[in-house]
């Protein structure tokens, strides 16, 4: 916020002008505030980590930060779509496990990756479609519908295999083993996929009719319907998108760990929701940014890395994330009450 003000030419009438401009900016762009707060927290965390540990901000470490959390980035992007419409998707962690173990099983039967990867995405999309249809046509609360999806995907993961399956397929392993390095920085195809997903989501949400409809539904479903927007189609599609993101995350995690494991991703849906909320998306829907979710995942990843650098118990990660979540919810609450008072 402050940077934005400084870059503007000094207002006529100096002091009062700046205050007025600041107020105008705050009231028009109050939805940006939580995301900017997340960016601020990320910067503070990174700087503090650098002060404490000399080499924290090394290019290698920062590259690893993205690559270790690539699957979570993809899940958070899918979750952002759902939460923007005012829904929630609890099934993403299980869908990731299901598609991951499915791919490992199919690959071990000598099927080529070119067939297996579309099957993964379709599997995720099918579960998403089921949730969407339940929510839209049967008036089931998103929480319960996606709970059914969670149970289904987790159970199916164990139906595919009860134990982990190693992946030997060169194409899938290539995704993680190839490194494009420049200077100390490096990125693998998995990281590129995650970034591509963010970029596509950004484009879709901000520059397409579908994206505007997503925001409109979150703002007020009734109004969106009265405006003639395609509410039913959009609401089902966001769950399908989240399911497909679950499939992509399954691919990334399989490539990352070199194996499919039916126990993967238990509780990951909570991490994804936390990342989205920390990134500034309002759980009531209608307000939020997919780039914010990326920042939220990076905050999560930084805390995790920081704790492992400090040699502390990893259980602190959960506690700190829970605490951060609380802070952000309270901040959102304040914003919502303020904007309600204004109207």
């Amino acid at each position: 916020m402050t940077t934005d003000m400084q870059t503007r030419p000094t207002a006529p009438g100096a002091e009062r002008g700046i205050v007025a401009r600041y107020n105008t900016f705050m009231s028009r762009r109050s939805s940006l505030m939580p995301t900017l707060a997340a960016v601020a927290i990320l910067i503070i965390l990174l700087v503090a980590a650098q002060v404490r540990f000399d080499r924290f901000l090394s290019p290698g470490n920062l590259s690893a930060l993205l690559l270790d959390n690539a699957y979570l980035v993809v899940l958070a992007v899918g979750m952002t779509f759902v939460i923007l419409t005012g829904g929630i998707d609890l099934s993403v962690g299980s869908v990731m496990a299901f598609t991951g173990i499915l791919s490992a099983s199919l690959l071990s039967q000598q099927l080529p990756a070119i067939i297996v990867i579309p099957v993964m995405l379709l599997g995720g999309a099918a579960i998403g479609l089921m949730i969407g249809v339940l929510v839209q046509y049967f008036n089931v609360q998103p929480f319960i519908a996606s709970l059914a999806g969670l149970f289904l995907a987790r159970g199916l993961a164990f139906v595919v295999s009860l134990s982990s399956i190693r992946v030997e397929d060169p194409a899938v392993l290539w995704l993680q083993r190839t490194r494009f390095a420049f200077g100390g920085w490096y990125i693998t195809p998995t990281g590129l996929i995650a970034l591509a997903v963010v970029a596509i989501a950004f484009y879709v949400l901000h520059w397409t009719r579908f994206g505007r409809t997503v925001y409109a539904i979150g703002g007020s479903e009734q109004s969106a319907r009265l405006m003639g927007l395609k509410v039913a189609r959009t609401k089902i599609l966001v769950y399908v998108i989240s399911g497909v993101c679950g499939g992509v995350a399954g691919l990334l995690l399989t490539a990352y760990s070199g194996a499919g494991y039916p126990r993967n991703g238990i509780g990951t849906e909570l991490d994804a929701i936390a990342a989205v909320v920390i990134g500034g998306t309002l759980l009531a829907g209608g307000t939020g940014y997919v780039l914010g979710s990326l920042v939220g995942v990076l905050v999560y990843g930084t805390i995790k890395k920081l704790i492992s650098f400090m040699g502390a118990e990893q259980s602190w990660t959960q506690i700190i994330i829970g605490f951060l979540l609380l802070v952000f919810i309270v901040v959102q609450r304040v914003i919502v009450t303020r904007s309600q008072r204004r109207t």
Partner: protein
Amino acid sequence: MKKVLRHRLFWPIAALVTLIVVNTIVRPQFIVVSVRDGQLYGVLIDILRTSAPLMLVALGMTVVIATRGIDLSVGAIMAVSGAVALTIIDASSDPGSIGTVLLALVVALGVSLALGAWNGLLVSVAGIQPIIATLVLMLAGRGVALLITDGFITTVNSAPYSFIATGYLLFLPVAFLIALAAIVVVALAERRTALGVLTEAVGINPQASRLAGVRSRGIVFGAYLASGLLAGIAGVLYSANIRAADANAAGQFIELYAILAVVLGGTSLMGGKFTIAGTVVGVLIIQTLDKTILFLGVPPAQSPVFFAVVVIVVVVLQSPRLHKWIRDLTSKRAPRANDSQPGTPVGTQNKVEVAS
């Protein structure tokens, strides 16, 4: 007859009876209850015993859902409560003494109450959406439990403590008696005082009930407090049963099964009207189904598929759209067709489940 069919507990009970009958036909010893050494034995008794933690959690969940809320943190509270109790017993010089166990119980339940109060504060005073408010503790609670146990699985050998879960009293398992006591207390408090009516009022319309002079804040707060305490008792039962505090596995997914039990029992997730008897039946359905799945030789890990199918069938049957279709179909023959019973043929679906 029509009155029986219309009763809102008819379909849940029909589903439970169907499950038991099908099990008995396939395996006659299912229904047999024998007495050995002054203790009752049998699959049914086992179901009662193992259902105790879920029963406690689901009772609390019913009250919370009646206020239009939801409590996702029950599993985490279970983990914390078990961790606290076992850490105290483990640290004491005399783990077998009743005094130590009592101290552990008091502290564990006190901590659970405090965690419930925390949820209640966030929801009723701060006005945060219940899903999100309890999500905070769901995330952080397991971390806290892991810290308490230092990341290990604390195991203890304390006879009085394991008696809570595996002992017998008056022919019946102690765990079941505890669950029964909780059912009686909750039912008396909600149905023999005005509390139940007030809770439903808050759930049906918070605004209107507040204007009518109901202290909705206190009632919502109390609901989360009760849920926390009941989850704490469930955590004690769980840890006493396995004689260990496993911060990761304790109460995993129990919030989901508890919500499922409440829905199966006929309480709407939209809040308002609730039925404690329905929840009890819902819990028994889940435990019996669980046993059935196990008996079919399905690995326990795969059982979520069955529950997913049950959830989908139940919610679809409760959905207004399906009721409208049925009405459209039947209206030609009976113009005043009434299909207000939620979850119509639950029983038949479960039969299909078991047969497959």
